[in-house]
């Protein structure tokens, strides 16, 4: 049957053949879903896809037509399972030569889906992002960033912004991919300010966006090797901690080039982001407990922490110590690190001992807060969350002012709750519903 079909397809032009294959996929997979308990795509079908959709040379116009057809195809398919199957038949990486064109087509399809608001495709893409290797996820993300942040600077707000509401799943995966991609190690690998703005606004609007994937993933399911993190938390912490130093360096270069700095300030954005991240971390114990993963799932891997700290050391070395505000930026970085460590440990996102941390941070410059966090009283609660007090117990801690603490506050062991305004995000934490919880 496949052979006959192939013969007839060969006689057609590229576009109509591709169309035919899509149609065939739709019918075939619908049948599979209905008839088979564990629907899957067989190899001949995959070969058909590769030959007639991915390998055929098409003009850009034909390709656009194909994309348009795909969009409507996914849109019209009402069954989630079938849609997912079609998507994975088309775009699941097979580790062969077709992967390149697969990625190219996928990039365009997702980009177009964002533009024309095809939520089903974005959902599929989110799943794809969960299952594919980091490298490819990052490629997809960078293509999207190029499309919407670099090439069409103006169009991002109405279009890309929409997806946070229409497809939070995709959005969460996208942020994870983006934080993996941009590690602030070089200028090229610093997130464009547009992107940063968008991410900040997304998380500000809804901090739980960050946790959508975690929430939707069954506790038992294991992740494929080399896939993206479950949450972008580690990446976001890296961004916030490194940013004072990295952007300091960038600006120095920019000034020396004599180019006018027309971009908006990244510093305040990172500041806001940091706050949001801390808030999300504070949400975490509840979520984890609910899933029964508290203390068992390290959302921030020790390796990530190690590489973050070594990056910090390198950045600190690169900086010119004689420059006036270097010290300020260093201290800001270290304080953000200390805050993140403290909260992450408290929230159960970071599972490691204080001794390990002390060893890791031994080469960093002195910072009061960091010192305090590292040497502070053994927080049993962090190690045994089931036994100990919930994170809420830490709420009186004067976290807020330290976010923009340019005048180091004398941190004392005895809290002074009365002298500080109540934590603004407190209301979020109590009794929040999770609208993204899987419905089934």
């Amino acid at each position: 049957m496949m052979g006959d079909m192939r013969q007839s397809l060969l006689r057609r032009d590229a576009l109509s053949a591709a169309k035919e294959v899509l149609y065939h996929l739709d019918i075939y997979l619908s049948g599979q879903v209905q008839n088979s308990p564990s629907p899957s795509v067989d190899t001949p079908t995959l070969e058909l896809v590769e030959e007639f959709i991915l390998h055929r040379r098409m003009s850009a116009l034909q390709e656009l037509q194909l994309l348009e057809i795909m969009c409507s195809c996914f849109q019209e398919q009402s069954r989630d399972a079938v849609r997912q199957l079609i998507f994975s038949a088309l775009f699941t990486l097979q580790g062969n030569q077709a992967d390149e064109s697969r990625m190219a087509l996928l990039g365009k399809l997702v980009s177009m889906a964002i533009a024309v608001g095809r939520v089903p495709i974005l959902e599929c893409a989110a799943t794809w992002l969960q299952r594919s290797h980091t490298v490819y996820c990052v490629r997809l993300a960078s293509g999207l960033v190029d499309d919407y942040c670099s090439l069409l600077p103006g169009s991002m707000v109405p279009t890309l912004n929409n997806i946070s509401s229409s497809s939070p799943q995709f959005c969460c995966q996208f942020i994870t991919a983006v934080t993996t991609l941009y590690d602030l190690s070089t200028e090229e690998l610093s997130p464009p300010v547009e992107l940063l703005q968008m991410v900040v606004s997304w998380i500000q609007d809804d901090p739980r966006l960050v946790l959508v994937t975690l929430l939707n993933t069954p506790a038992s399911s294991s992740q494929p090797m080399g896939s993206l993190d479950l949450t972008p938390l580690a990446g976001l912490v890296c961004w916030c901690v490194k940013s004072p130093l990295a952007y300091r360096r960038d600006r120095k270069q920019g000034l020396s080039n004599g180019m006018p700095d027309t971009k908006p300030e990244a510093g305040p954005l990172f500041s806001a982001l940091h706050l949001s991240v801390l808030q999300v971390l504070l949400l975490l114990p509840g979520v984890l407990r609910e899933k029964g993963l508290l203390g068992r799932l390290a959302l921030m891997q020790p390796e990530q922490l190690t590489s973050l700290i070594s990056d910090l050391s390198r950045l600190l070395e690169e900086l010119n110590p004689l420059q006036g505000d270097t010290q300020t930026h260093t201290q800001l970085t270290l304080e953000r690190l200390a805050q993140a460590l403290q909260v992450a440990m408290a929230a159960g996102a970071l599972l490691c001992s204080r001794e390990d941390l002390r060893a890791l941070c031994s080469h960093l410059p002195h910072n009061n807060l960091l010192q305090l966090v590292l040497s502070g009283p053994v927080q049993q609660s962090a190690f045994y969350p089931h036994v100990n007090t919930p994170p809420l117990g830490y709420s009186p801690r004067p976290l807020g002012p330290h976010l923009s603490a340019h005048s180091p506050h004398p941190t004392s062991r005895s809290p002074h709750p009365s002298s500080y305004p109540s934590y603004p995000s407190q209301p979020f934490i109590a009794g929040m519903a999770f609208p993204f919880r899987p419905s089934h």
Partner: protein
Amino acid sequence: MSAVFDGNPLTVTMQTSLAHTLQNAFSPQELAQEIKSFISGVDQNQGRKLSVREHARCAIRLLRSVPACRGAVLEHLRGVYNEHVSAFLHNLETDGEGDGDSNLEDVITEVHGVLSEFIRLNPRAWAPLVSTWAVDLLGQLSSKHAGRRAAPHSSSLNELLQLWMSCAATRSLMEAYTQCLAAMIAWCPDQCVDALLDTSVQHSPHFDWVVAHIGSSFPGTIISRVLACGLKDFCSHGAAEKCQGDKSSRVPKIGSVVGILGHLAARHSDSIRRELLRMFQESLRPPAITPSSGSTSWEHSVQLRRAAVPFLLQLAALSPSLLGAVSAELVESLRPSVLLQLQAVLQGLPREELDNMLGLAVHLIAQSPAGGARVLRFLADTATPSIISGPTPSPHEGVREACDRLLQMLLLHLHKLVYTCSEGEDGYYNRPHSPSSQAPRVVPFLEELQSHVGELCAETLRLERKRHLWLHQLLCLLSVYGGHSVATEALCQLLTLARNPDELALAWQLHTPLSACLPGLIPAAVKRCVAQVHTHTLGPKQLCQLLLNLASAVQSVQEEERRVQGGGAGGAAACPKSSMAVQVGAAVSGHLQDFCPLLLHCDPAVSHAAVRLMSRSPLPRAASPSHLLLICRAAVTHFFLALRRRGDAAEARGGQGGEAVNCSVLLLSRLAGYSPLSLKCVLQQLVEGALHKGNADLFGGQSEDIGGDTPISPSLTPDRGGSLLDINCKFGTTVNFSGSVWSVFHAGVIGNGLKQRSPTPRPEPASVIQNVQTLLAVTVQCCSVPPGNGGNGGSARQQPSVPSEPPPIDAEAAKAMAVTLVEYICPDVANGELSWPPEEHSRTTVERDIHIRRCFEAHPVLFPLLHVVAAGRPALCYCSAVLRGLLATLLAHWEASREPLAVDSPWQLQASCMLVSCMGEGQLLPPVLSNVHEAFPYLTPFEVRLLLLAVWEYVRGNGPMPQKFVFNSEKGLFCRDFSRDGDVARYVAPIHSVLHKNIDRLGHLCWRFQL
């Protein structure tokens, strides 16, 4: 876009900038509709077909809002641009008859606006994209429409440029690309230029205008990139492959490189030259240097560096303009250290490739239109072994050898080019037009060197080791190439500049190979030399050298002849040198009259050289009388000049003066022997000159006695520009030399006051005697040459100073002298008949007689001259009037003399003696009478008068008629048979009386008067 962060509420407000928000304010649904419309070309809402314009607008909207459509939109825009170009060209072709769908122009403008805005806002993202698209589209458009009628041929870059830049579509693309390039140049110039060149290769000739235009906007970047790109391509094709083999595949890229650079060369030749040189120098720099400037990468690849030199050579071979641009400075930059580096780099190349390169380099040198002289000097300098050579060969030895080889190959190559008329087998010599048309091959190198012949000659003459051999060979080739004019010039230069026989030999060595293909070279060269003389381009020294060189050339002929005559063996023809020298002689002889003025040159050395040349050169076979007379006049004048100089020099140092006189004598005698006319002329001039008041003092004469003016001898007057004397002395063909000219002297030059009466220093008696002797010798020699002998045998004669057997004086010559003498001494022709009247009649001619006597008094040299005339019997007869006048005054003197003895009037006594002996010599008197003068010193004035009267009587009775002389073939002389005259006895009676009276003193003389 800006973000405002206002502290506490921690919100980020985003303000999107202006238009975007409005234009992008499409809902996803609208966008989906838009995409559908774009794909189908049908308005989805109204269901009607979109016009081209609406379709394009739709595309632009999508470009702004849906990134995924970018590819499709740009593809669609290609069609729009193409359509516009078609319409544009159609419009041109139909002269605007078509309605012209030029309303697309605003769409194009719109698209351009959008693109350029994108590029401006985000160059990093858009510039690579748009630049690739624009370049590709430009390539497609220009090659697709290349065949159109309105499109000019691809070779005329400027027209193409004009056409395409007047088309909105292509102009917009070009502008967009330029904008991209300007943006990208800072961070990835390689990428965009590579794309440009790739496209250029793909659409090869039609696309060159784009590159050229871009190149002139970004000369610095484009030129170096184009070069680097070409180098990479060259290298990847394998420089080692045979040039002919893969020409088809290599030519496009290097061809484009050449085309582009060629276009840029018009306005950016400096940059190009700089870049080419930079490439050359970079390629030589030792690779140890770490990449400091990471601008271009080719410097870091050993392979590329190594290929750079061959690449540059290839490039130069393909483009004469590039070659011209770079060759001059390249040579300058080749310092010893650079050469060493070059050697080091090239050592790594395989031999075959090196040979190829060498061949190419030789070819290039031969083809380079400018700077050839410098290149040559560089090669020769480098290839010449250094003088100090240590025990071990210096590191430069390799370089030197290479240069040596290069030079030799160059010479060989030029030799081939010059001598082979047919097409060369070698691939390099492909010249499209030459086989059919017989136009001579143009070799720019030689063309240029033609103007440096003089320097080359001078260099060659330095005789530096190998160098002069090369240069000489080159001169030879140059002469063959340049034909007569160059060959003549070279030979002439060598003749002028050579300073010794060795150097002069170079001229003959040059002539030998040339004589085969350039006949008549020597006459032309000599003619050119003469021209140089005429134009006064040579200084006295050079002039002198030239004359001496010519003289020695001519002399070698004569030596050769003499040797041949002496040896007897017929080896003359075997010696090419002699044949050439004969030619020189012949050529010089044709220009003798041109050398005449030099005889009187104020520099003694020059005039000496001139007389040397003239005395040695053969006389022309057929000279026109005017020339001959000119030569004679000059020669005689020079003779007197030489005498005077000898006199002056004798006081100072001597030496050359004597030789000059000898030469002069030789010249005169040869002239005299040339023809009766010349003989007569020479003698006449000699006599006149000797008696001329300017020269009189040379021969012991007093000039004041005759004229009132002080003679100013040429040697005494400083050579003054406005000198009247100079003007009078000028030898023009029209100047008449008889008498009056010499007397055109005035009281002085106006403004300088009265002419100074400088007392003429009396010459030494010894030198007077010597002068007289010389004069007589030359006169005798002239007179005794049998006329018609021709001048050529003249040199074989012996020196005049030692006559072992005095040759007979020619009667005709003597007659000429006689006539001249008479004309000079006795200008009054009344009573000028030969026969003598009775003595009493002499009263009627007293005044004339006195004039004659004063003449004799003033010019002691007259008597010797008369003697010469007398020797040429019967010439003395023609002096009859002079003799008679002198005798008359002597008679009058002796009659009136109241001195006791004749000895008391020394001059008259001597004059009487000389007169009588002269007449005796001339056989105007029989032997008895001619001896009477022997008695005069012993007699009283009265007795002397008696005897002289007897002489008079005899001559009156037996007139001095030439017809009385008979030619005696035994002696070769005319003789007079006195027996046929009347009885002598009656004239002897007074003699006997006087003898008797004074027998006590005259006894010993009696036998002299026996009949």
